[in-house]
């Protein structure tokens, strides 16, 4: 069952791996030439960009250093977005998409327990995300070393683990909403709203007293607060992300086991 689902994901897997790898190669390589011309990334130059943009990009404080550049360009926004969209697409393929199209009808009548069916399709998504994360990690490390970025492999690994966990979390949101409702649109809405709101809360909203408590509900808080590029693995934050995914996945199992399929 897992192998079957992975077979279905094969093309997306290759596509996303290549896409994200290309992005990483291009943007990280540019750093080599930007470094030659310190003016571009100097504090004065960056001060010209609007404050809100700087907030959204996580402050852009030390973008001239290798770690700062990696954090701002790769791990702050763009790569997480790509992983989240990818996870949402794959997560929807677990239940919602086959249920909407009607292919789930035959699968559900196989002599396989429903809970197991869901868990295996969920596991396939996690494995697929892991493969994409592993490939892009490899590419990033290679590029970083070739241009001498000055960030240790352990730090990149710590940050990349965070991206993987963030993707798993949002993929799980998609699987769970799909398992509860059987439809793609609510799953995509849930991921979209939670991701955008969660991101805003920890960036633009971090100085707004009234909503700062909301950060506890934001996956991005656990993803970025520990500054893994600078400080290494934020173990407890990551465990919260993983734990939340597990709780959601169990919810998905319980809900899917109880309801009518394809109605």
């Amino acid at each position, binding site marked *: 069952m897992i192998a079957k689902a992975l077979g279905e994901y094969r093309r997306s897997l290759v596509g996303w791996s290549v896409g994200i790898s290309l992005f990483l190669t291009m943007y990280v390589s540019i750093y080599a030439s930007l470094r030659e011309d310190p003016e571009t990334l100097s504090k004065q130059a960056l001060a010209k960009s609007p404050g809100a943009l700087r907030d959204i990009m996580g402050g852009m404080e030390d973008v001239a250093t290798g770690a700062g550049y990696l954090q701002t360009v790769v791990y702050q926004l763009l790569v997480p977005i790509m992983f989240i969209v990818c996870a949402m697409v794959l997560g929807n393929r677990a239940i919602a998409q086959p249920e909407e199209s009607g292919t789930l009808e035959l699968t559900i*009548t196989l*002599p396989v327990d429903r809970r197991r069916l869901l868990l295996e399709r969920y596991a396939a998504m996690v494995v697929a995300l892991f493969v994409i994360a592993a490939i892009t990690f490899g590419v990033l490390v290679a590029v970083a070393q070739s241009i001498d970025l000055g960030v240790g492999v352990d730090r990149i690994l710590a940050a990349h683990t965070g991206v993987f966990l963030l993707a798993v979390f949002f993929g799980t949101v998609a699987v769970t909403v799909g398992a509860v409702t059987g439809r793609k649109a609510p799953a995509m809405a849930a991921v979209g709203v939670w991701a955008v709101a969660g991101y805003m809360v920890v960036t633009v909203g971090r100085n707004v007293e009234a909503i700062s408590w909301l950060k506890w509900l934001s996956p991005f808080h656990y993803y970025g607060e520990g500054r893994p590029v600078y400080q290494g693995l934020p173990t407890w934050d990551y465990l919260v992300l993983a734990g939340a995914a597990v709780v959601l996945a169990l919810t998905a199992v319980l809900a899917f086991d109880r309801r009518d399929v394809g109605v």
Partner: protein
Amino acid sequence: MTAVVEAEGLTKYYRARRGLEDLTLEIRPGEVFGYLGPNGAGKTTTIRLLLDVIRPTRGTVRVLGHGSREPAARARIGYLPGELVLEGREKARDYLRFLGRIRGGVPPKRIEELAERLDADLSVPMRKLSKGNKQKVGLIQAFMREPEFLILDEPTSGLDPLLQREFLSMVREVRVSGRTVLMSSHVLAEVEQVSDRVGIVREGRLVAVEDVSALREKAVRRVELHFDAPVPPEAFADLPGVRELSIRGAALACTIDGRPDALIKAAAGFTVVHLVSSEPDLEEIFLTYYSEAS
């Protein structure tokens, strides 16, 4: 022997909409049970309840001695969905092998045999299959494991007449080997050829379960007789089972309820040039049951 299907008071509502109301039904081992009704009558709802795709609002159902929630029952069932959806780049052959593996193993030779018999091309990606070819793939996956119980929802839709005949002979073989079939349809003609018993469902209720032979007797047929000369209407007045009688010169038209015996005997006194008897139409059988109920 335990019944293959034992449903008691089986009821399904989709929110407020009625899907199936109070179905009590037993399907016996070794029989071919035809499940008849117009679209939306509750046939597919019943089938999906048996397979645990949907859960009953009330009532119970046991399939092959198992509660319907147990996956073990489904291991012994071959199922063809009414609306079979096959998608993706995967080749039909690979998909069939996957289904075979999950169901506990099907020799590849068996798949090829069935494909040849139904003239199905399995080397095509599934999304490129025509409707008829998808139906063939659906039939192959249902029959390939030689399951104890076959559940076929509108199995002949999309098949050309030649293949329909091949399909019916496959069903007969299943019956000969002592296995059980539940087959839904809205066409009586295809069900009555192979079924032992027929259940008629209408607006969510099972209105009748009959032996096919008994149903045939109850069926309303339109009959036309043409004679070589005008016939006297008195000769055909008040014949049992004959209704809507009209005689125009040498032509007689009527509907017959049950046996045509009385009409044939009355007509035997004249020279019959031409006789037309149309197959009983399901709609008219429904009307018969309706008029009996009211």
